[in-house]
């Protein structure tokens, strides 16, 4: 477990990137850090491997303060995917991937085996890619290598700073799925920075919502949707989701009846249960009413508002990638 205890970070120019942050990041889970640009996500992450040091407060890994730890040793034990990939252009894929194992003085055959195994795992044929250079790979392939490189030294903790941000939506979703699958096999403590709520909801076990150097809320995706701590979190989830209607999915409302409310006293727009979730969401918005009353073959089966539709969409995604 990684613990932030009253951590403040003030840069020499006076910028306060983190303000008195206290936070527990659970072990062996994927935690997404999300928030608008400049809210301190990268800074928070870089403190875990001492690329930045706190101005005040302390950080603990498994109850041990990292202040006293040797930074080079610490970093070799933590995987790191930086915001802009950062593959070494003059090294082959094999050399890039095996860098940390070599720093850790692994025997050559173990290093080689591990590199091949990981490349295979993310769908890159070692025979084809090992001897290529980063610039000879597509963006998506480079990002995969970035992830593989971070995992190569078999770290318990992996830091990923918007690893998929430079990708088109399709490769991006593909990599998100791959990461989820990978995590189900390896169970690392992964800190995943993103500013895409869709991405966070899709891949994270726990989500930390940040704003202006402070944590607004920490919880499971379900908790965030069900009980947003404040207006900011509600808007952040809402607007981000509405921006991406596509992700509400094509499955029909009636498949999610168990998620919807049975009673509702207020105003509601009547819709057919055979509508898709995304169409229903659109209707809800257009109607201006707080809820939809869902009718299945003439019978009222439930009420759904924005939150219930989100849950349906989320449920859909989780199931699809599980």
């Amino acid at each position, binding site marked *: 477990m990684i613990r932030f205890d009253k951590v403040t970070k003030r840069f020499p120019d006076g910028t306060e990137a983190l303000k008195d942050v206290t936070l527990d990041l659970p072990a062996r889970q994927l935690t997404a850090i999300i928030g608008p640009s400049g809210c301190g996500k990268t800074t928070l992450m870089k403190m875990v491997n001492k690329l930045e040091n706190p101005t005040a407060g302390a950080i603990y890994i498994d109850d041990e303060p990292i202040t006293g730890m040797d930074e080079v040793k610490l970093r070799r034990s933590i995987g790191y995917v930086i915001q802009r990939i950062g593959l070494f252009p003059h090294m082959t894929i094999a050399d890039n991937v095996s860098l940390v194992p070599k720093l850790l003085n692994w025997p050559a055959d173990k290093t080689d085996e591990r590199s091949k195994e990981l490349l295979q795992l993310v769908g890159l044929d070692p025979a084809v890619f090992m001897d290529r250079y*980063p610039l000879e790979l597509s963006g998506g392939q480079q990002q995969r290598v970035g992830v593989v490189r971070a995992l190569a030294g078999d770290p318990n903790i992996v830091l990923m700073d918007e690893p998929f941000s430079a990708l088109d939506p399709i490769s991006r979703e593909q990599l998100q799925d791959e990461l989820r699958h990978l995590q189900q096999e390896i169970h690392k403590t992964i800190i995943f920075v993103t500013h895409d709520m869709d991405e966070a909801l899709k891949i994270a076990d726990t989500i930390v919502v940040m704003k202006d150097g402070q944590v607004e809320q920490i919880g499971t995706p379900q908790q965030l949707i069900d009980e947003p701590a404040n207006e900011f979190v509600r808007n952040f989830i809402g607007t981000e989701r509405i921006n991406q209607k596509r992700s509400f999915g094509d499955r029909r409302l009636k498949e999610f009846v168990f998620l919807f409310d049975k009673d509702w006293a207020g105003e509601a727009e009547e819709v057919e249960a055979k509508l898709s979730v995304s169409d229903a969401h659109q209707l809800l918005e257009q109607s201006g009413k707080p809820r939809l009353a869902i009718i299945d073959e003439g019978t009222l089966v439930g009420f759904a508002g924005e939150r219930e539709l989100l849950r349906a969409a989320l449920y859909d995604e989780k199931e699809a990638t599980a």
Partner: protein
Amino acid sequence: MNAFFDTLVSRQDMIQDAFIEHIYLSFVAVAIGIAIALPTGVMIARYRRFAEPIIGVTAVFQTIPSLALFGFLVPILGIGSPTALIALIIYALLPILRNTYAGIVGVDGSTIEAGRGMGMTRTQILRQIELPLALPFIMAGIRTATVLTVGIATLATFVGAGGLGDIIYRGLQSYNNSLVLAGALPVALLAIGFDLILKWIEKRATPKGLKT
């Protein structure tokens, strides 16, 4: 034209000696120049606040006309090849220093941060990331310095250090155009030859992954 070939044949020994002297002077000057400028370039890339003053000082030396620099050095160091070498080294410094510095400073910050984040020490980052990526620049600096030095080494004759300048000077004094040419042509060929060889090395020094 015939006169020229006659000169070449009759003065063959002298020209050959001067040629070898010339190569020796240029080569030693560039080698020492590299030995000084390369580590200094690495240093000022790490401690950037020293970069401007140090590059500034070498740039000032560079602006002193070469004949004048030889003139300044003679009263201090006397006549002979050490004086010529020192002057030549001073000229070789700037291109190597500036290119080493620019090459290292130009390495993408995120690449270096990736190295740091993966637990590489400063020395490992320098040797495995910064120097290989800066190598094409460094080689270009060495090439510029070499061509410059080969040219300026013709002036070594004025401090009694020999070289092909001797031949040119003698030719000028005796109004012997063939002799002037017999000194000047090898200098030009040397400069062009070194330039080609070093250009080839420079190309080979470019890390493979950067060529595509």
